[in-house]
Every structure is written in structure tokens, then in C-alpha cells.
């Protein structure tokens, strides 16, 4: 049974490609409202999750519900409640912008012309232009405007700014953040750009190897990760012995430790290892997530 308070609910969801597990018994519940960011390294299962949720891929095991409906049994009406924008911004390149808008307007009963105008106003897109003539950034903007004008209950953005330049990226984010339509729906935002996540996300979901590793506000996650700099003469402690270690580096004779879920007792640990001085400092989301994801990144077997 699905809970109406959640837009996405998966229970022990697994998807297998041959011998590889893209989703590994994933239990995920995304509540209604706000912007939820999903991050993960390549291969973490993000796109697979979206494809399963939208009914384009069957799960190998477990269940997936989206807006309360079994993802494998979505009706056209259900699809009308879910907006989707991906990184390719696939629209027919041979069609004029005004024709695309007309098509969507007829297709979606809850079409919101104001929301469309609000977003497309951030871009210099002319109605008579063909989609193929638009820049990548303009196409991304048009796609976002179309998706928000559908008045979806859930908007899924799968790496929408991938390949955009800095200006286009900023325009995209601003048009999303300042859109009143976006405020009325739940947004799932998947990206590798931590500065984007930091700006837009209310909730941070980290997937790793198809498993849920974190679900909290970005601030809470940042608070879990700390950066310690220690002056340890001679050889520092063995990495395996360092509690909560995400990363270790030695720069200019100082050891830099990025650790997870460590409080002041970590200073005691460093002292016990011979550290003469040490200091801790907070880290940004980018550093925290990267450190977290890099911890278990695959590496070739030692020679």
C-alpha cells in the first residue's frame, strides 16, 4: 500500500542488469512538497530509478509507487501529473516553438499559461523559431517552461543543466527557483553540480551503488562531515584505523582528514596518534558529498 503523503515510495526495489545491481533493495520515501535533490556517482542508480518510477523499466524485485500508483501501471492521466525534464532536452527539432506550445497546451488540461510565460521570459526564445535552432540553454529553458506549465504534482529533473554553460545554468536555476509553479509542486532534482544542489535543494538524498545512503537537509549532511588538519610528526595512523574516514591527504607535512560523524573525540584520537596540534573546520556541500562518494569509489586492485 502506498502512502499519499509521499510522492515516491519504493520498497526493497532492485534492478539487475545481467550480473550488476543498479538498484539494491532500495527503500526510499520522498515526501510531498519541497525540492529533493538526488545525488550519486555515475552508476549509483539514479537514472535507473527514474526509469523504473516512470514505468519504462520493470523492477527485478520490490515495488515502486509514484504519486500513489504502481509505477508499472501508470495511466495517461497519471503521466499528466508528472513532469519530466532530462539532460538531453529532447524536443522535435523540426517543429516551431509556438507549435510545441500549442501541442502541450491542448494535451495538458491544467496548462498554466502564466507559469509558461514566467519561465520562458528568462530566455530569448521566439515563437517562430524552430526547436532545432535554439541553443542548448534555450532548449533547457523551453523544456522547463513546458514542464512547469503542465502544473504537475511532481516534477522530475534529471541532470537538466548537464552541458550548459555558466550563464545558461544560472538562468535555468533562477527560472526554477523563482517560478511560482515550482513552489506548488514537488521537485526531484538530480544533479552532479553541488553548487546547484546547495542553492535549490531542501532535502538531500544520496544514492550509492543502488542503496540509500543519506536523506537529510543539505545543512545536516554538511554538519556530519568535518575537516581536520593535524600536525603529526613521523607516520600518521593507518587509514583503516581512522574512525569515519572519508579522505586523507598529506600536504606540506600536515595531515588533512575528512571524516564522517565525528565529534570532539576525534581530537583525542589524533592526539593519541601523536598529533602535536590539530584543528577542525566545517566543509561545503561539494567537498562533503564528493568525499562521501569518493570513499567507496571503485579502484583497481593493488598490484
Amino acid at each position, binding site marked *: 500500500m502506498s502512502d499519499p503523503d509521499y510522492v515516491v515510495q519504493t520498497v526493497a526495489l532492485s534492478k539487475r542488469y545481467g*550480473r*550488476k545491481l543498479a538498484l539494491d533493495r532500495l527503500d526510499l520515501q520522498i515526501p510531498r512538497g519541497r525540492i529533493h535533490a538526488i545525488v550519486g556517482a555515475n*552508476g549509483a542508480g*539514479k537514472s535507473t530509478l527514474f526509469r523504473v518510477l516512470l514505468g*519504462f523499466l520493470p523492477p527485478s524485485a520490490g515495488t515502486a509507487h509514484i504519486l500513489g500508483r504502481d509505477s508499472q501501471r501508470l495511466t495517461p492521466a497519471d503521466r499528466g501529473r508528472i513532469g519530466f525534464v*532530462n539532460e538531453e532536452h*529532447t524536443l522535435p527539432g523540426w*517543429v516551431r516553438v509556438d507549435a510545441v506550445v500549442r*501541442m502541450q497546451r491542448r494535451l495538458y488540461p491544467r496548462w498554466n499559461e502564466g507559469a509558461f510565460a514566467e519561465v520562458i521570459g528568462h530566455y530569448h526564445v521566439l515563437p517562430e523559431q524552430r526547436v532545432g535552432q535554439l541553443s542548448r540553454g534555450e532548449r533547457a529553458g523551453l523544456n522547463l517552461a513546458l514542464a512547469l506549465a503542465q502544473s504537475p504534482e511532481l516534477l522530475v529533473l534529471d541532470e537538466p543543466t548537464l552541458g550548459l554553460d555558466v550563464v545558461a545554468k544560472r538562468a535555468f536555476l533562477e527560472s526554477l527557483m523563482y517560478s511560482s509553479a515550482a513552489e506548488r509542486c514537488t521537485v526531484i532534482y538530480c544533479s552532479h553540480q553541488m553548487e546547484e544542489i546547495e542553492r535549490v535543494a531542501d532535502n538531500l538524498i544520496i544514492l550509492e551503488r543502488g542503496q540509500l545512503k543519506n536523506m537529510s537537509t543539505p545543512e545536516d549532511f554538511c554538519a556530519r562531515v568535518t575537516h581536520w588538519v593535524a600536525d603529526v610528526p613521523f607516520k600518521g595512523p593507518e587509514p583503516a584505523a581512522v574512525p569515519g574516514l572519508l579522505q586523507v591527504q598529506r600536504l606540506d607535512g600536515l595531515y588533512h582528514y575528512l571524516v564522517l560523524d565525528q565529534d570532539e573525540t576525534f581530537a583525542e584520537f589524533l592526539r593519541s596518534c601523536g598529533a602535536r596540534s590539530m584543528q577542525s573546520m566545517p566543509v561545503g556541500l561539494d567537498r562533503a558529498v564528493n568525499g562521501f562518494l569518493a570513499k567507496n569509489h571503485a579502484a583497481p586492485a593493488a598490484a
Partner: protein
Amino acid sequence: MWDLFKAELLRLRVWALAYAAVHLAILGFLMRVVDLAQQPLLVYRVFGAVYALTGVLLGLYQMAGYRRPTTWLNLLHRPLAPWRIALALHGAGAVLLAVGVGLPALLVAVGQETMTARVVDLRHWLLPLAAWLIALGLYLAGSFAMLAPRRVALAALVLPLAWIVGGASGPWALLVQALTVAWLAALAVIAFKPDLAAPPRHPLAVAAVALPVQMAVYLAFLVLCFGVEMLWIMQGSHPLNSATAPAGGAIETDRMDGRQRLLAGLAASDDPQAPLWREQVALADVLGVGWQLGAGLRRQSLTNVAPMEFDDGERRVRWVFSHDRMRLEGYRLTDSAGTGELGIGNDTAAFPAPALPAGTLGPLPAGDGLLIAGDTLYHYVTETGRILPRIHLADGEPLAGVQPLGEAVAALGARALTVYDGRDAADADVPLTPRLRIPVPGAFGDLSAIDVVERVDGYLVSFAFTAQAHDMRGALPYQVVLAVDDDGTLRTIARRDIDADFPALYRYQAWWPSPFLHALREGARGLFARPDALTATQCAPVPRAIVWLAAVLAALAALGALLLTRNRAFSPVARAAWIIACAVVGLPAVASLWLLYRPQERLDTVPLAHAAAA
């Protein structure tokens, strides 16, 4: 949906218009050079193949543009049922093909009708529709090939083969085409779903997809047999290309000349006069009887076996048979101006059946010609410009051919060889009167050779039935020798059973892998086809050993289904249905089960690795 349809038209409109322009230019050029309405079958087949290729390429190209996962997701993730999206895209494809393929053909027909005196019948007006249906059918097959899982992608291409093997003609052939297109459209719609790799769910959809897959597997088996046969021929020991044909077999009989065939037949005779006849045959001239028509002509058949026209060299007029008017329509070879109609007799009555020029006979005046129309032979008299009936077979028996037989004239019908007095042949006003009627001792479709020796008081006639020696649709090969006296007395003096040269396994290779699919194939051949006495055969019963082989294979198929369905996600009813289907259809059904359904994905079967591509 309407917007998607318009957008898709917009996408390919330039290509369609360019194709239409080139197509029109080619047809227009050919119309100036030849009469496109009177081409032999091969020409129409070449055109049909080009239209089919056009359709397949369009289907592949159009759907390749949507096949990529993200594009597919964007296309189908909208508040519109997938079948409506499929209808919009394929509807646009159908319109584009109508513009590119059908319209130029129609314009050329209009041009031929309005700008020339050539014959344009209803059947010619139907040709653009037939061309469009060919292109449309293959377009849908191409679309299915692009969208369906790769394992079954080519299965849809097997359905249009019904057009090649089918025996229906005229509007009935169009109906067969339309039904096939409807099936292919259903396949395209079934393939049009979010999860492209998923097998169909609804029982009707399963049947619609599984049957073509089974037919494709069946066809693949036959092609494999053909390939093995080619290797056999290359190796040099195949009976058909070995230097010496197997003794007592059909190939040896086919390679014999008439005298050898008669002697071989008489060798099997226990008639007391057989030794005497053998001596006569060794000394006498042996006459062969051939025929001009291998199949009956149908009114408004879309294509011609051969051009239905002949030239009057004296008047410089070309006479072309019109299926609408059932008369010949003429135009001058000098200036292409029309010269009117020509029917039977002085009042130019309509022919009772389509008339095909059949050459001439030795005794006829130069320039005169013959026409075969149904059960009657007509004589075109150059001198008077009239057409007169000369030979009429009784009871509507279709006439296959006419030729001189010594001093006489022989007319071969589907049921009998009739001998006429040749002295009257040159006199156009006199219908020929039958002198002897010799029934064909078998089915005309099995007949391969007739050899005749004139006796003092009659004829010795040998009928060899080896035409279907290697095909289970016909009779097992045999030869019959008849002694016919001038007074009409007829005796069978020999019947020789001829070896089929190949084992029964070979002759029945289309049957034992799946009697069900063989029956389906035969059903497709006969769908809306009128029986034709000229192609009718006497099918020999299937040998008991072959029946047992088929039964064993069916049992193996049921067992295979039982095993395969164990690790696939089937309800008990679906599982039982598949096992029964495999028992009925045979091994091709097991193959279709294996191709359509992959084993259920489980997490505990093999050691798993993480980090699949996201």
C-alpha cells in the same frame, strides 16, 4: 494526437515530396517509353520490391529517431495512451507513403487514361492502392523491427510473404493485403509501449506477436534446409545436378526425351502388345504436347502473367485486352490514335473470360493469331479483322494450350487432351470438331510432359506426372501410358510409379516441423483464391513415418514448454496455454516462447556485481 501527427508530417515532408517527384519522373519517363499497364509480372514485382524497400527504410528511420531511451521516454511520457501516439506517428507515415508511392502511380494512371489511347482498366486504377499497401505493410514491419526486442524484431517481415504465396487476385488480393496490413498495424501498436523489452500481456496481443515469430522460425528452418541443399549442390552429389540422374526417378524421367519416356512407360506394361508398341515407338516420330497457360487468368487480376496484347502487322494496329470492356481495344502503332474495340464475331461481342494471345498455328494464314479465353480458343483473322471462336471445350473446362499434332490439332484442357482434324484449321469460319477426347489421368498441376506416337489406328499417349515430385502439395511421381483408338476406345496399358529421388524427410520438410504452421501457410495461399483447375494437384497422403516424426516433435515441444515456463513469470492458465500451444504448433512455438520471454530476473541466481550504468 493530431498535433503529433502534424509534427511528424512536418518532419519528413521534404523527403516525401522529393521521393514523389523522383518517382513521378521515373514513371512518367517509363510511360512515354512503354505501356506500364501491360508489363509482365516480373516488372510489377520489381516495382513492388522497391516500394517494399521504401516502406521498410521509412519505418526503420522514423522509429530509430525515437528508439533511444531518453527520446522514447519523452515521447511516451505524456497524458496520451501509447496506442494513440502510435496512431499519430504511423498515420503520418501512411500519409507520407501515400504521397511518395501512391500519388505518383495514380497520376501516371490518370496521364495514361487522358493522354493516350492505351487501356486503363479498374485493375490499373487499383495498382496505386496496391503499391501503397505494399509500402505501408513493410513500413509497419520496419517500425516493429526497430521497436520490438531484437530477438523477435524481424518476425513481422514474415507476414508480407502472404502476398507472394497468396493465390487471390484482383480486389481479393487487395483484401489480403489490407488484412496483412491490419495485422502489421496491430504489431506496431503492441510494440509501442513504455518498456520496449516487455513481452505483450493481453492474450490476443500475445497471439498476434507469437504467431509471426513462430512463422519466422518455421521459415528460418526452411531457409536452413535450402542452404543445406545449396551446399549439397556445391558438393556435387545432389540428384538434380549430378551427371547421372538416379535410376527410375523423377529427375531421370524429366531428362528423358519423348521416345525414352514412352519406352520407359511401356517397359512397365504387361500388355501383350507392349513389345510391338515398343518397336513402333523406337521407329516412329514422337510428338510432344505443350501448353501456353500454366494457370487460369482472372478478370481484373492486378498484374499480367504476360502482356495481354498482340499486333496486327498488316494494319499496324496493336490490340490490347481490356478487363473492363472484355474486348480488345486498339491503337495505331504509327500515331497511337485509338482505333476502337474488337470483340467476338461481327457484332464484336464481349469475351466470356480474359483473352491472352497464344501465338499461331502452322496451318493458319500468315498474320493470323490465336487467343485463349477460358474454355475457348479464338482465331484473329487479319484479312477481315474479325475474331471467331474455333475450339470450345465442354463444361467450362479451362483451355491450357493448342498446338499441331501431326496432321491434327491438339487442344489441352485441364481435364483432357482433345484431338481435332487439322484440315479445317485454316478455315476461320469453321469451328473445329473434336475427333478424340483423351482424359488426363491425373491432376493438371502434377502434369509435366505429354508424349504422343501416332499409330495406324490411333495414338499411344504418355502422361508423366512429375511436376510436384519434390513438393508434398502434389502427387508422388508416376507415368501413365494410354492406347487410344480412332473410334475413341481408350485403354491404360501402363502405369509406372516413379521414385521421388529424395527421402520422404525431404519431400515433407515443410510439414513435419509443424503441421499447424504448414496448414496456416496453405490457408494463406488459398485465402480468397478461386480454385484453378490448371494448378490443381492430387496431394499424396503423408507417410505414416512422417506423421510419427511430427507427433514425436510435438511431444518434445510440449516437454520443452513445460521446462521453459518453469522459470518464467506465467500464471497457471498462461503456462497451460503455452504448453498446449507448443504441443499443437510444435517446436517453432517453443522457439517463440524462448524468444519472447526471458527467464524471470532473480537476485539469488548468480553472484552479483554493483555499479551498473545509471
